[in-house]
């Protein structure tokens, strides 16, 4: 909508009820809903050296049977390029391969990305800066297979040990405390419970 149309609309609305009401500008309180997002702590330099990454992202997707050979050829031709480009262009971003199920179910692929920290995801701005590079072209094609599967999933994982000190952000911490309280465990002691402890009442 152009500014002129906005002005006409605003003017019409301002006069709709007679004399315009006093101007009012109110801040909208925004609510960031992060209930299901767990903040991943960054491990120290000597911590968790055995893990795949401080953050692992998994893409799970199916490829039509008619395209499986084509996709495997694409991987054979491009995976080394993708993996080495990640190391060269970005800090803390690693391609860990695309895997095909080999037993017991319909063929499915899973691609794994490892990050040294949650913040390392921002490195993609650098990695993808050149829209025509061989890396971006290969990555676009890899991602296109995931996009083509309407049931494809994208999951984030982090080593459980990372959350021993920091539960994963205030809301997740709150959720865990609530659950522990409900189970009669080590949740935070509320005012009522403190009072009961003092008086010995149950």
């Amino acid at each position, binding site marked *: 909508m152009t500014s002129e149309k906005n002005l006409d609309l605003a003017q019409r609305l301002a006069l709709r009820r007679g004399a315009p009401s006093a101007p009012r*500008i*109110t801040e909208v309180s925004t609510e960031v809903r992060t209930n299901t997002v767990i903040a991943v702590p960054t491990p120290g330099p000597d911590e968790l050296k055995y893990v795949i990454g401080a953050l692992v992202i998994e893409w799970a997707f199916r490829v039509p049977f008619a395209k499986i050979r084509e996709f495997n050829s694409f991987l054979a031709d491009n995976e080394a390029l993708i993996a080495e480009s990640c190391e060269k262009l970005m800090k803390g971003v690693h391609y860990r391969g695309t895997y095909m199920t080999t037993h017991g179910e319909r063929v499915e692929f899973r691609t794994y990305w490892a990050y040294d920290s949650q913040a390392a995801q921002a490195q993609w701005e650098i990695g993808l800066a050149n829209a025509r590079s061989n890396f971006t072209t290969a990555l676009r094609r890899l991602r296109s297979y995931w996009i083509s599967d309407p049931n494809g999933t994208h999951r984030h994982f982090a080593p459980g040990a990372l959350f021993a000190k920091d539960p994963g952000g205030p809301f997740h911490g709150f959720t865990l405390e609530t659950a522990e309280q409900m189970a009669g465990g080590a949740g935070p002691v509320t005012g009522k419970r403190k009072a009961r402890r003092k008086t010995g009442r149950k």
Partner: protein
Amino acid sequence: MPYPNGCFRKTPRLRVRPLPEREACLVYTPGNPNLYTLNATAWVVLELCDGRSLRQLEKAFYQSVEPLMSEQEAAEYLLASLRDMLEKSIVEVVPKRPRKALGRSGEARLR
């Protein structure tokens, strides 16, 4: 108003989304990230801030609301809106453009 020689305009990259059903608009200020609701009166003032001087704004705003408001009442509403919008980084004051840059009806067009 301490800006006798300035022109008023929306801050860069400001986002305005009309909410006609609520007789208001939503404004997002990316420079100083915040979301605001402007009622229709404040919205009129905002839309008039396209590089006009205070004098030009007074005239244009009065034209928008007359004859339902007097010139003085309109000026009061205008000043209240401008103060609030400046404080919230919704509009900004920029120096006046040279005379040759003025568009029709003598209004400064800064964009």
